[in-house]
């Protein structure tokens, strides 16, 4: 499996506090990795650097071996890196279709008018909703605010899949979701891999991580302490011990 993303020697300091120290992280093509660690381990900082939300203090990022600079979320999106946060980064007042295409609205007519092709947006939204497994017949004009938590996550994942993001980062996507909704999100993650995407999956619930990932990476105190844990060969308890540092 070739490497899609290679982060090397990533460090991040906030004044005297070292949030990350010399972190290396590799994500393969069509690979789902689980990024685990206790609170303050540096997971979110690492992900924010990769998604362009914050700059790194030192280190390099390469995509398919080519060094890239990611200085903003727009940079990350244009490099094919999409992040789905706990709150899905959606606009509650906008419709499903408008959220899906926010920032990349398809236009019709002269470009300077900025006239959205709402017919095309609705059509794509309708088929995407089916693709990600939303069984209910929800019109694409429905505001995101009236969807359930799981449905919102599904829309966010659908957006990442539609725009052919090569790497989808899911930051606590199953937080505050019910059992059925969580299973839906996990199913979408597997679908994403099957359709050629790579994922970084962050969740506090290790059991959720074990259900979908190919490999587990553990961070502790801003450093990588394990990066090749096979969830099929390792127990949840062992991983918990690595996370807490109480290895027996």
């Amino acid at each position, binding site marked *: 499996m070739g490497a899609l993303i290679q982060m090397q020697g990533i460090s991040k300091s906030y004044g005297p506090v070292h949030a990350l120290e010399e972190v290396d992280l590799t994500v393969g093509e069509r690979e789902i990795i689980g990024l685990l660690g206790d609170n303050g381990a540096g997971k979110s900082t690492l992900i924010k650097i990769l998604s362009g939300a914050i700059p790194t203090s030192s280190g390099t990022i390469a995509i398919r071996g080519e060094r890239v600079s990611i200085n903003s979320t727009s940079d990350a999106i244009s490099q094919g890196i999409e992040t789905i946060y706990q709150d*899905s980064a959606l606009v509650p*007042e*906008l419709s499903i279709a408008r959220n899906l295409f926010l*920032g990349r*609205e398809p236009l019709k007519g002269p470009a300077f008018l*900025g006239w*959205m092709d709402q017919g095309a947006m609705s059509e794509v939204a309708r088929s995407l909703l089916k693709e990600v497994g939303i069984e209910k017949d929800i019109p694409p004009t429905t505001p995101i605010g*009236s969807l359930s938590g799981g449905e919102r996550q599904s829309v966010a994942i659908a957006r990442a899949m539609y725009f052919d993001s090569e790497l989808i980062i899911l930051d606590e996507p199953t937080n505050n979701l019910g059992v059925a909704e969580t299973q839906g999100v996990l199913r979408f993650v597997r679908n994403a891999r099957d359709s050629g995407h790579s994922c970084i999956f962050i969740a506090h619930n290790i059991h959720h991580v074990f259900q979908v990932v190919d490999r587990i990476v553990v961070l502790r105190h801003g450093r990588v302490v394990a990066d090749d844990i096979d969830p099929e060969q390792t127990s949840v308890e062992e991983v918990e011990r690595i996370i807490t540092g109480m290895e027996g």
Partner: protein
Amino acid sequence: MPSFVKRLISKPEFGPFVLLLAMVFIFWELNPAFLSLRNISNTLAFTVELGLIALAMTLLMTSGEFDLSVGSLFGFSPVLMWTLYNTGIASIEISFAIALATALGIGLISGLFVTRLKIPSFLVTLGMLLVVRGTALYVTNGFPQRTWNAKDLPLAQLLVGDFTVAGLRLHMSLLWFIAAAVLLSILLTRTKTGNWIQASGGNANAARARGVDVNRTKIKLFMLSAAMAGFAGVISSIRTAAANPNSGTGYELEVIAMVVIGGTALTGGRGTIIGTVFGIFILRLMRNGIVLIGVPGLAYNIFIGTIILAMMALHSWLDRRHQEGG
């Protein structure tokens, strides 16, 4: 209940529309002069001037900001224009262009303060209100600028010239208002810019994460709002033959009330130009109607306050129903 009726009721414009219809009917019942040609003509003339500001404010509030300096710009822009013209510094057209460009600049400064320095728009535009109003008063010594020879100028005809349709005397400003309402409604509902405006107010972080330039979007809306206030002020100065530096005092709150009554969320994210048009007419017809039916004009604020509270309660109830899938 049939689904199309449910959909209709859930629209933010529905409540203001029903209220407007009820008001027209009640005032007309109590005093038939309410719908006389003369009364309609007089009411429309002033209504659309405030309405122009409310239309631009709708977009700004949808983006999550508001502008308290619009009332002072309503007074300042015509003062600047007529001072330039009356002192022979510039032709009327150039004076008009300078007045609008100055308003745009003031909007730009407000926008930069809000977006770059992260100061709430309430504080920035409150400060700007005082600066602009103070400047208008200082340069005029508090006296109105003469505009009584303006009516024959081609620019004045273009902005406020009157014409008669089926016995109803109307001003050109009505056409400007209709054009602005149509264009801004299309902008908000059909274009990429409209999508960005709503996203900026609904969840600015999510919008930024999608590559939306939230700051630039808001700055442009501050500029539009300021320019529209200046434009409305110039129209008003020609119609009333006076450019008074005190004009527009208190208009900012009346305009914001028109916008929220129409269904635009004060917190941003949701806005409706059609609703604002209803809001504009509700407030102006209320002012006109209560005088016609003999209620003391001083009681006007009681009615307006009650309408605002009632409409907020209605919008909040509709929102909750919508969230619950009702």
